[in-house]
């Protein structure tokens, strides 16, 4: 349960009560990027009549896509108005820091150069319109995952900017994220002490399920949990955390209740099959405990609170869960449901603030 003030826990923190690790800022329109694009790419967009690159992850009319009141009076998409974000979230929830994950469809285009130009423009727009204007905000660097060398360049370009705390990947990629193909991204992120955030989304051509394309948006959204599980297995099996021991990854908006069962299966298989992956030199669950974090919303909550507490205990670490609202998406009705279980105060404080502070160094 989110209490009105964490100072009531006796560990009063004067600057705020929580760090929100998943907030979405949206572009009001593609035109806002024009000041940040070269003539070539601006002309490319205008001459071809590119309306926008909004992805279809959150259908405009679907109830999940916008909580009540999240559509700005100005008419842009939910998450496109900083003042509304302040009013609906930063001020009213007493947020110390909020981390922006901008989900513009940069990763979906097939032209790597265009993707790189759009990523640069989105990041420069984030600096000008969000980070420079609101000190409580931090942001993730949008990268052209299509080309890991270009992605690394973009991280290099912005890695020292204090407003960026993370590089943003999407959970659906062309190849499993553990593959060497993506290692340039991890090398530069580790060097700049940036977290790798892996967020729900992406659609590079592979079906969301191992058995083809489902019919419904509902299936697609629920299946993201399977996408996250596969990526986690890949990152560990390929030895990414052995190669980059300082690297940490956050799984964002993919649920967390599946984690215990995945770790058990992975550990068991490792005992029988470890000879195939010699660089995985300890239990996969130990590597996951050390290097991986997960945001909490949406919480796939069970029919009773006790089961959720048991599941959190099964995770085997109190350091892994990070509070998030997933603003402006609509997963919970009441503020207290953002953390839908009564936790011991110390654990609650870790989830609301301390785990994120330790991870992001903010």
């Amino acid at each position, binding site marked *: 349960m989110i209490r009105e003030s964490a100072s009531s826990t006796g560990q009063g923190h004067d600057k705020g009560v929580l760090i929100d690790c998943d907030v979405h800022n949206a572009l009001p329109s593609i035109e806002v990027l024009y000041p940040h694009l070269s003539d070539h790419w601006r002309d490319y967009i205008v001459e071809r009549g590119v309306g926008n690159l909004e992805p279809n992850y959150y259908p405009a009319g*679907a*109830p*999940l896509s916008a909580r009540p009141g999240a559509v700005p009076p100005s008419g842009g998409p939910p998450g496109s108005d900083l003042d509304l974000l302040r009013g609906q979230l930063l001020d009213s929830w007493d947020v110390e820091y909020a981390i922006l994950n901008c989900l513009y469809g940069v990763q979906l285009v097939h032209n790597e150069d265009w993707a790189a130009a759009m990523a640069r423009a989105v990041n420069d727009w984030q600096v000008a319109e969000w980070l420079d204007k609101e000190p409580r905000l931090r942001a993730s660097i949008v990268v052209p995952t299509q080309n890991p060398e270009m992605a690394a360049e973009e991280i290099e370009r912005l890695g020292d900017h204090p407003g960026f705390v993370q590089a943003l990947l999407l*959970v*659906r*990629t*062309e*190849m*499993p*994220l553990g*593959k060497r193909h993506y290692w340039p991204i991890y090398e530069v992120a580790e060097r700049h002490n940036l977290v790798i955030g892996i967020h729900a989304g992406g659609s590079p051509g*592979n079906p969301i*399920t*191992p*058995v*083809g*394309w*489902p*019919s*419904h948006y*509902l*299936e697609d*959204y*629920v*299946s993201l*949990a*399977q*996408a996250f*599980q*596969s*990526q986690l*297995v*890949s990152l560990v*099996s*390929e030895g990414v955390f052995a190669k980059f021991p300082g690297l940490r990854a956050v799984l964002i908006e993919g*649920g967390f*209740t*599946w984690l215990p*069962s995945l*770790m*058990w*299966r*992975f550990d*068991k*298989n490792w005992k*029988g*099959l470890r000879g195939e*992956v010699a660089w995985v030199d300890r239990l996969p669950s130990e590597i996951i405990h050390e290097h991986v974090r997960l945001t909490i919303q*949406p*919480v*796939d*909550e*069970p*029919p009773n609170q006790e*089961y959720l507490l*048991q*599941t959190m205990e*099964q995770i085997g670490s109190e350091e892994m869960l990070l509070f998030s609202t997933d603003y402006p998406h*609509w*997963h919970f009705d009441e503020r207290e449901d953002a953390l839908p279980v009564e936790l011991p105060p110390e654990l609650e404080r870790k989830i609301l603030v301390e785990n994120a502070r330790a991870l992001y160094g903010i």
Partner: protein
Amino acid sequence: MVERVAQREARKKTKTSFIDCDIHNIVPSVDVLEPYLPARWRKHVETFGMRQHHGFASGIPYPKASPGGGSRVDAWPPSGLPPGADLDFMREQHLDVQNIEYGILNCLYPKVGELLNEELGAALARATNDWQIVEWLEKEPRLRASIVVPYENAEFSAAEIDRVADHPAFVQVVLLPRTKEPLGKRRYWKIYEAAERHGLPIGIHFAGLGGNPITSSGWPSFYIEDHTVMAQAFQSQVISLVYEGIFERFPDLRVVLMEGGFAWLPSLMWRLDKHWKRLREEVPFLKRPPSEYIRKHMWATTQPMEEPTNPKHLLQVIEHLGSDDMLMFSTDYPHWDYDNPDRAFPVRLPDALKRKIFSENARALYRFEGETRVSG
């Protein structure tokens, strides 16, 4: 060492009989199907082979943990046949020593559903089922079997189910989880119509390489990944079957998840319920929370046993399922990750639950005769 363990195992007969819901017999080579396979298809196999999505003529892209399709090293019969191809040795090593009341055969080779040529798949399915009747079911009264079908073609599959379903030893239809499309899609419905018509459960069994990558981000590098994330393929099928409304459209259909794990099922049920509440208007044909369909229409076999770091968490997971009627014990004989009935559970089960998992749930699902004896 391995031999000594095997000898010790063989001397120690399990006290209480049980129903083994997953045993593998295999067709050792297409030659044994000669009496059942038309010459036209025998010649086809000789000339063109059995082509699948992956590019290998006979191998597979992810070599398994051991030879013989990933078999126990002690499961190679003295006869020289491959593991799972010798009934006498199966009796000696498994059925007799483990005191098995009924054992359900899932014949995974040849993979009739994964062949690119569906006509060949249909011919091989017919031949394999006829071979199962003659070589296994008529020779061993403890055995029951699943009907193999070329499941990517629902018409062929339904015809095969209709052809052999009246044989009393066929108790199930078996599919692999790595289908071309999610199993809730309309292209598979004729299979469910036929299964429902004959009162047969649909079993979805671990295996297969499919045409789609096993992750939503393409092909992983290692067998440990392929094996670990096969659970996600099962999860995807559960999502599709439930959200496409299969259990509203086929109210008597029952589905068994075999060798795909079960500890993930509570979490998936919570997630299915949670997002259905917000987005239900997209699937108006669902009348109840998704988890209710799962508890009523789905079962899961236990091997490979879930092994939490803290064994007590396994009892929590079973409680989280919200039903004691869904789990059924299986050994997966003769494969490398075989579960021994005396040792598989890392924690002591309450007696009533143990009887259900080891016998009663399967007896009720498959409508087997007999009574479960009280645990010794």
